[in-house]
């Protein structure tokens, strides 16, 4: 599978950046939960997810991505079956049916893994499509590859996760290349779809968007999360309150402190300095990935890396922006930092795949 000659070409800078970010994530999860969860269950579980994620990452480094392109339709097919199964037999949890129960009390979100499979499928499609601009037929094919799982996830109905597929549409249209008339067509479709979509939204989802538009609307209700996150971040000041000293997180004023709002814990405990360091690490990570994309051996590798890094960018920007109310509150985790089994594994696999493309950039490898 992987020849020994390849190992020295592993980009340790890139891997190191990812692991530093993940370590910071573990520290923050510890700090956010040690007080309310003295048995450290959450922290230990995250370490387990990290371990499993590292194994998955190793697999996705070792297996040549061309091989993965070959089996992509199978993986994509399995994902679609699981999503369909959820719609038929899944249990409703927090308004949505997005979890599959595993023996031993574990559960996972097929939609997270579907992101990887869809990215593979899309990259495989562009690998065989050499044109700079998509024609109408290939545009429809690309949209169908992405639209399939999105439709199933919307039916769960998990709009948050469905929205995380948006970067794939962007990749397909921006990097795949479409003519201006398709852009217009796409905009028209969005303009028509928006009011219909709004009508279909659940009450709590509408509310989240309304809070974003008018932040003072309900300071003690749904706006509570953003308010508390801003208090946490602002009170951290320049230097922060110190590791484990964030009262907002420790005393549980900050909701979802180890998941969606973990960045607020960073802001509170590590201050502006910590925020800048983590944002800097992410930016470094993104810049390196885009360099990998440029230097990839083939079009498929380029598209695979772009698709994966766009997932990262999308998650980072949405999550970080909502911490201080720049964007509305959504359940979108922070890559490699937020607690969560499926998302942690997904992002570790993505890191593995980017390294995979990077290692195999030389034609004679």
């Amino acid at each position, binding site marked *: 599978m992987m020849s020994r000659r390849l190992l020295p070409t592993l980009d340790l800078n890139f891997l190191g950046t990812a692991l530093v970010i993940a370590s910071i994530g573990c520290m923050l999860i510890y700090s956010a939960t040690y007080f309310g969860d003295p048995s450290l269950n959450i922290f230990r579980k995250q370490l387990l997810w990290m371990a499993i994620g590292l194994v998955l990452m190793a697999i996705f480094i070792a297996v040549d991505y061309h091989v993965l392109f070959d089996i992509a339709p199978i993986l994509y097919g399995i994902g679609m079956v699981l999503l369909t199964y959820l719609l038929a037999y899944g249990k409703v949890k927090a308004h949505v049916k997005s979890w599959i129960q595993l023996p031993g009390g574990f559960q996972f979100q097929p939609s997270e893994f579907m992101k990887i499979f869809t990215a593979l499928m899309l990259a495989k499609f562009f690998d065989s499509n050499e044109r700079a601009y998509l024609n109408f037929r290939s545009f429809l094919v690309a949209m169908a590859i992405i639209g399939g799982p999105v439709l199933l996830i919307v039916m769960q109905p998990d709009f948050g996760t469905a929205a995380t597929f948006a970067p794939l549409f962007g990749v397909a249209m921006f*990097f795949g290349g479409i003519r201006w008339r398709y852009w217009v067509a796409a905009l028209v479709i969005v303009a028509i779809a928006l009011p219909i979509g709004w009508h279909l939204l659940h009450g709590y989802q509408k509310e989240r968007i309304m809070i974003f538009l008018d932040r003072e609307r309900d300071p003690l209700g749904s706006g509570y999360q953003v308010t508390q996150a801003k208090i946490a971040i602002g009170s951290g000041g320049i230097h922060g309150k110190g590791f484990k000293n964030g009262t907002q997180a420790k005393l549980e004023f900050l909701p979802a402190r180890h998941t969606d709002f973990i960045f607020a814990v960073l802001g509170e405990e590590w201050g502006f300095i910590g925020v800048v360091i983590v944002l800097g690490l992410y930016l470094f990570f993104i810049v390196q990935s885009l360099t990998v994309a440029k230097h990839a051996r083939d079009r498929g590798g380029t598209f695979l890396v772009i698709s994966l890094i766009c997932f990262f960018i999308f998650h980072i920007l949405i999550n970080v922006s909502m911490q*201080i109310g720049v964007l509305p509150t959504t359940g979108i985790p922070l890559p490699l930092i937020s607690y969560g089994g499926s998302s942690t594994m997904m992002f570790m696999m993505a890191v593995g795949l980017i390294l995979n493309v990077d290692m195999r950039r030389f034609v004679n490898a």
Partner: protein
Amino acid sequence: MRVYRDDQKFLNFRINVLLWANVIVFVFLAGSFWFVQGLQADKYRSLSEANALREIVMPAKRGLILDRNGKILADTQPSYSLSIDRVLLKTLVKNDANHKAKLFTFIGQILGMPLPEVQTRFDKGVVAGGMQPIPMAEDLSIEQVAMIQAQSISFPEINVDPVQRRNYPYASMASHIMGFIGEAGEKDLATRKDLKLGDLIGKRGVELMYDNYLRGKDGAQYWEYDSRGRRLGEYRPSRKEPVAGDNVYLTIDFELQRRAEQYFIENEFVGAAVALDPRNGEVLALVSSPAFNPNVFSKRFTPEIYRNIASNPFKIELNRVIQGLYSPGSVFKTVMAAAGLDAGAIGAGTSFDCGGSGTFFGRRFRCWQKNGHGAVNVERALKVSCDIFFYNTGGRLGVDKIAEYAKELSFGNITQIDLDGEKAGIVPSTDWAAKKQHRKWYPSETISVAIGQGPLIVTPLQVAVMMAAIANGGTVFRPHVVRTIEHVANDGSVSRLKVASQALRTLKMKPEVLEHVRNGLWKVVNEEGGTGGNARVSGLDISGKTGTVQVIAQSGWFSTAGLPFMQRDHAWFASYAKKDNPEMVVVVFVEHAGAHGGTDSAPLAKMLYEARFQDQVTNARLNLADPETLEQLKEGRLPQPGVAPKEPAQNDSGLGH
């Protein structure tokens, strides 16, 4: 038209677009965080503290008030007060709608108070707002504290807080100097940001004037609560230790003060007495009788207490030394003598013949001595307090010249003592008549002013400051009651701030003028026939001036001693000692004494001088013929003049007080 671009170039361009777009967005995000964490950090920090921390005030210990020798006149004693934690109450009421009614019944039982009053107090505290507990009662007995603690599981919202209560161990002693404290009123709270509801602040006297030093700075503990309202423990990093108030040392001498008050109490006199050091303006004793008990004010101040005080016929809240306005009577002859001599209206040898009465500006004026004093010069006029002499002097000076000198000698304006509510009095002049009375000044009125009657009114303190200036050679000092302010830091280090003596002005009188006045004042006490013989103490050259002030218009010569209280004469005695080395001025004023100043006021002055110059008196009476005494003197075992004895002298009972 179809254009195919080089595929790789095409992709690289777009990747670069994505890259730079990212850089821009990341910079924007970092900027947003800077806005929240850098610029608005303070706002969010306080919001964060408001979330998690609840402040519990640690009251600062109020500073002591001590006499000049360190005897404690006011301290603070621990007591207990009852308050209700409003946050806890809210959650309890949420769980049990009847809880509030139960709580009020319980509190009513403990305090022995009807329910409506409990409700009123509660409402008053709630309105005040904030997160602070609602104050309900003070000065709980130990039994009450025990009863509350027994029920602490049913009523966890009731706090029993140890508080520090102001205590004046000698009750009414020096009460007019020290004043009292009370809860900050709405006006105080509105004007001073550092105060909060329930804070005790000085309301009168030294407690008020030196409140900034005495009060100290309250500290605070912060208790951490989680989002479910559970109390977790104290958050030490935020703790602010209270800073104890500074100790204020008065210029007052406890012994002198005690004796002076005793005198008024034993004789049931209403009046005032003040003793000050003419060398620096330090007030050694200040008595206004009757006095009040400031301990009453340390408790919750109720309207009833105030009404009791305000309705007292003898105006106990009035500090007569600085607020009592009286005619100076013959005491003013001291000013007249100095003014006449200095202005050249009279000379040391100028003599007037006193036949018991005389006619000035068409009106007949009497001398207090029906049979007349015969020929009198200025020194003898002071000694026998001859009215006729000063009528003549006044007539020669005119009222405006008199007013000029009176004002120089501290009358007609506040003395600027460090006590509140001082009155200025009135020094009449033609200008005053025109501006304040809108009338013409009649020359015959000048004749009344010349013997300290008429519209002229003064405070006893002004008389004392005048006497001090005469005694010390012409320096008008600002009188003050605080000597030193002592700051004890939290680490135990002590720093002291001495209140400097302040000379307000120096009289431009010729030295021989003051010399003649002082000779006259000495003769008042020490020569046979002087009006102040009652103050004479051998060994101390006490000088002074008596004064009797008529309260009702008299048409003849008679004593008012048998008249109803409010119609009797006032008695003055203004004095200093010793003649050539003045160290203390004593002014005594007895309202409606009915007797001559020399009878009722001079004995107190004598007593105070004896106490003050105890050792000199002792020395004067030492039998130097006794070899044993001589031996003791040589070894320095007997107190030296001017040095206070190390122990209270045991043998002072023989000195006649």
